[in-house]
């Protein structure tokens, strides 16, 4: 495992951002009546990213006078993009601009490219310039640009939430004031994959001669090399003790941020973990209390 940042890391991503800048977003917004309620209007957005790829996002705007703080959910590991994440209370939409991105390959942004699950993680993995996540990372940055272009958004309170892609977005894009991330797939990805059922392990088993090429690609996606670029106030959620992604395991990443992030160790309870995150965001955004699901209230 290479613990050094690749020499071409900055150039690789600058090329991506330069290329992205060549494509105007050309946003189309269409109201979605069935997802609109008394407290918020839902829109479906279509806009352009790298390679003229048209993306999709759900955008929910609270009723009333803004600007409003914003939550930006980047894609996770599944194909489905929900208007707000499964389990989040819909009442959130009365307080926040909610933005949920379908990057290329994900449902609602699956033409012309429909990603396979499993399959996406290794699509093009032997060539950094062809790796699907190069475009997906660019899509996430484009999503942040589109969100921040909305006049309803309070630019002083914009949180990006998710896994590695959230971290990439906060590092590569401009304007995220807060970041809540759970490092996962791309952290020391090659080491983490060995001996597991991961897609990367499958790829290496079938293509044993490709390890150097795979390592070369994945090195450009390791969260450790993105962290120094991040200025957003950050909460990192780690795995519970004993895993590859626990606090000790992530210490090289945690130490790489410009400012030490807040760190929360998962208690393997989406109730307890969720409560912590909601409280963290609420506190940072100056609210008296978070908006919680019915079954999380006392």
């Amino acid at each position: 495992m290479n613990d050094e940042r690749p020499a071409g890391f900055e150039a690789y991503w600058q090329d991506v951002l330069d290329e992205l800048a060549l494509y105007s977003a050309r946003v189309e917004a269409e109201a979605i009546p069935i997802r609109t309620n008394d407290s918020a209007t839902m829109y479906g957005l279509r806009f352009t990213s790298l390679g003229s790829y048209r993306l999709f996002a759900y955008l929910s705007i609270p009723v009333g006078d803004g600007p409003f703080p914003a939550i930006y959910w980047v894609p996770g590991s599944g194909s489905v993009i929900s208007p707000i994440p499964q389990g989040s209370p819909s009442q959130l939409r009365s307080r926040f601009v909610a933005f949920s991105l379908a990057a290329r390959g994900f449902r609602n942004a699956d033409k012309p490219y429909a990603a396979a699950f499993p399959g996406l993680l290794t699509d093009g993995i032997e060539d950094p310039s062809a790796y699907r996540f190069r475009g997906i990372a660019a899509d996430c940055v484009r999503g942040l640009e589109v969100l921040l272009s909305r006049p309803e958004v309070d630019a002083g309170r914009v949180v990006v939430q998710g896994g590695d892609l959230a971290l990439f977005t906060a590092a590569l894009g401009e304007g995220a004031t807060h970041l809540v991330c759970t490092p996962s797939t791309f952290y020391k990805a090659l080491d983490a994959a060995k001996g597991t059922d991961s897609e990367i392990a499958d790829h290496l088993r079938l293509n044993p001669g490709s390890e150097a090429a795979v390592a070369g690609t994945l090195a450009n996606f390791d969260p450790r090399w993105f962290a120094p670029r991040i200025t957003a106030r950050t909460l990192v959620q780690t795995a519970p003790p004993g895993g590859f992604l626990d606090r000790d395991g992530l210490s090289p990443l945690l130490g790489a941020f410009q400012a030490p992030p807040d760190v929360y160790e998962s208690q393997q309870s989406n109730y307890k973990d969720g409560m912590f995150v909601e409280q963290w965001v609420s506190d940072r955004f100056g609210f008296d209390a978070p908006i919680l699901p019915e079954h999380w209230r006392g």
Partner: protein
Amino acid sequence: MRPSPEGYVTKVRKPADFDEFWDGVLAQAAGVPLNPETSYSDLRSDEGVEVYETFYDSIDDVRIAGWFCVPRGSDGKLPAILTLPGYQGEPGIPKEWARKGYAAFSVAPRGKLRSNSQFNPGYPGLLTHNITDRNTYSYRGFYVDAWRGIDYLLTRDEVDAGRIGVTGGSQGGGLTVTTSAMRREVRAAIAGAPYLCGYVDSIELTHAYPYEEINDYLRLHPDSRDQVVETLAYFDGINFAGKITCPFVIYIGLQDQVCPPETGYALFDAVASVDKKLYTADGHGHNAGKHNIDKELDAFFERHLKA
């Protein structure tokens, strides 16, 4: 202070012609040949597990995908596990079950990737697709797709037809309920944080997706409420539960914000099995504290499928 979920009284009512309706669906399904197709996956197989990509036919001319796994080098008949997927996630490859000595099959009902070329209502969308008509409601075919996973297992030489278990979490938990109810071949089942049980309760108890899809629908179509409630009664796991007779385990989180724990209790009360157990996890949401009882759940299947 929230009232105890244990004391909740469900609003689910069973239609008088519930059995007649499903008998008709089963009769339709019986007329559709399975046409199973199984191909070895070099990419997903490893030194311990053989992985096969599978397809079979279901009602309404929909082709259903799945993943079938067996321990490499096994001989003789194996106990089998059918794993059923959650609402949003794609069905995983059940290699862990194969490593535990089972033939394992993971089904992707209609609308999931690889099973969505003929039917693709989207997410959100699946839960309310044709929700005013029980004869065309999305879950009519979706349930059958899952049940036919049992038929697929029965085509495999590796599988001991007398030792089949079913399990899943969330929507997979709900499908575990309906599959156990409708397929006598199921000898033991584990349902985690079951979804699709207590629909009409859940849309009042929680305002989170996926159930929120129904509230969205009713907001736009308030005049359809009676028809929606009528349809959902035919698909509610609580109404299937009286048909379950195999050993059955349910586990729920008492802070589940997706599938309200009240519905888990109501489901447990309705399960007809003599051998049934409910695990409740205080301090846990939709993951229902499963990691704390994994050993007990493994032992349950071993007791009923490997003994």
